[in-house]
């Protein structure tokens, strides 16, 4: 009785696992097959030998190396600077009393609740007038100060005891030094979670890069993928390889750091 129930639960769970990760496997295999074989029925379940060919044609139609670099460069710079900025702001909100604090914080909470779509048109006009279309800063700057990250850092900074800050001040450490040598090291888990969250949201983002990057050599991976399906003749081998390239780095990163990763993607909303 108990064992049959157990088998039932396991088989349901395993069916779910196949549904969850099956598409990944199929995508990986697809990236090694020629376009025609991807639609072969019954499906080909073993990798083919077309990977290099797919890469070659993907590179010919899009210059995938440069696009991969664009995505990586933007996501890394964005993650680093944005994490620093939000840690600084979070620290100020958590550990200082100052004039205007309530107003500043209220503004941040408001921006947290407003759908970002509302800023698209004026931001686009702004990018045009700065002559920033097809530049990295067009993607990096507008979302660099993430209200969500600031809010999370504030919550985490609050848990840092005031006494260690006071003690450093008594020792004669400057405010800058306290922030970099005392505060940042003790909030490392939060910094890790926030930076994973920021990296993922930038790496995967489609709408804003789609608007600001219209010359091929400045595409990010999601924009490049969406441009591939807009082509008159879709090459599915290329498409599968493109999706693989956009997924693999994150997948490796995820499998290595999964615990941090999960709490990072959940935006630190879940404590484990």
């Amino acid at each position, binding site marked *: 009785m108990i064992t049959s129930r157990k088998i039932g*639960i396991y088989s349901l*769970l395993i069916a*779910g696992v196949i549904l*969850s*990760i099956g*598409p990944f496997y*199929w995508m990986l295999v*697809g990236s090694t097959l020629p376009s025609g074989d*991807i*639609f072969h*029925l019954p499906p080909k379940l073993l990798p083919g030998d077309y990977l290099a060919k797919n890469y070659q044609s993907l590179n010919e139609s899009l210059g995938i190396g440069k696009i991969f670099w664009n995505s990586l460069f933007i996501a890394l710079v964005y993650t680093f600077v944005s994490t620093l*900025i939000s840690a*600084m*702001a979070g620290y*100020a909100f958590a550990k*200082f009393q*100052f004039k205007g604090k309530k107003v500043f914080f209220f*503004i941040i909470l408001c*921006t947290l*609740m*407003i*759908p*970002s*779509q*509302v*800023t*698209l*048109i*004026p*931001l686009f*006009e702004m990018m045009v007038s700065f002559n920033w279309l097809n530049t990295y800063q067009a993607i990096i700057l*507008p979302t660099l*100060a993430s*209200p969500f990250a*600031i809010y999370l850092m504030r919550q985490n900074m609050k848990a840092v005891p005031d006494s260690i800050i006071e003690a450093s001040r008594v020792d004669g450490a*400057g*405010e800058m030094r306290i*922030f970099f040598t005392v505060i940042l090291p003790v909030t490392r888990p939060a910094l890790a979670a926030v930076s994973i969250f920021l990296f993922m949201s930038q790496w995967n983002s*489609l*709408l804003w890069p*789609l608007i600001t990057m219209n010359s091929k050599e400045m595409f990010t*991976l*999601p924009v490049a*993928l969406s441009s591939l*399906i807009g082509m008159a003749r879709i090459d*599915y081998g290329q498409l*599968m390889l*493109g999706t693989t390239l*956009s*997924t693999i780095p*994150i997948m490796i990163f*995820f499998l290595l750091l*999964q615990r941090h*990763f*999960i709490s990072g*993607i*959940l935006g630190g*909303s879940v*404590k*484990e």
Partner: protein
Amino acid sequence: MDQTEKVVNTTANLRVKTRKNVLTPKNAPYFFIGPAFLLILIFTVYPVISSFILSFQEVRGVQKSFVGFANYSRLFQDPIFYKSLLNTFQILIVQVPIMLFFSLLIAVGLHSSMLRGKAFFRISYFMPAITALAAASIVFMILLDEHFGLVNYLLSFLGLDAISWLNTPFWAKVSVILVMTWRWTGYNMVIFLAGLQNIPADLYEAASMDGAGKVKQFFMITIPQLKPVFIFTVVMSTIGTLQLFDEPFILTNGGPNAATMTITLYLYETGFKFFDFGYASAIAYVLVIITAIVSWIQMKLVGDEE
């Protein structure tokens, strides 16, 4: 010569001194907040206001003229806008409950103590949440192909006819819902799982000493204890769905016949295909208002029950 040296020396001294004292506990917070605040002012607050003004203007090239509520009244007569509203809400009302039901079910299944390989299941179920929505949509676009897609092939073994997933209005919506559910179920499951793990074990012990069975315990303890987590996932999923863009853009580009046109997709088309900035801003503000109302209702529901 001497004097200049002296001046140099004093400025050097001054510099050392001021450098040491440039940040005091009084002014430090402004320094720390400065970059974030400046960026938010320029790239969020200004655009939010500017977009509000734009929604009362007509933009022709570089010419802008005030047209009062014309953009808004045009919205109320625009069948595609109505359709995008309706589609967004239909997808919301069907997708969010189905997804959260599966998330909860899997979380409860994984939480039951007798299970082995929990970590494996957790990672596997979470995997879809790391993929770019664009990539996920492309993979499903191919899987759902009417003639050569794997999904229809598998359905044929059940004796079902091929479904025209992406080319008929009804099934196109179902396809969008499928992709969303695939992408987000594990994500919400992990949130539920964390919620389940935070329920104190002694609540269950006390209940079983009182003779409450497993099912009763589930409804009397688990569900009420999970309520805050539940509300969090509902609110987040709702807000996310109201802003739905990537999946319909890639899978169906809003078609067929605008069956998967969503508010954000329509905003994108109006703004960046037709460059009708005034009208697009009006659409954006309707989205703001809807989001505010929906969030308010959900908060209110929470407040009333507690």
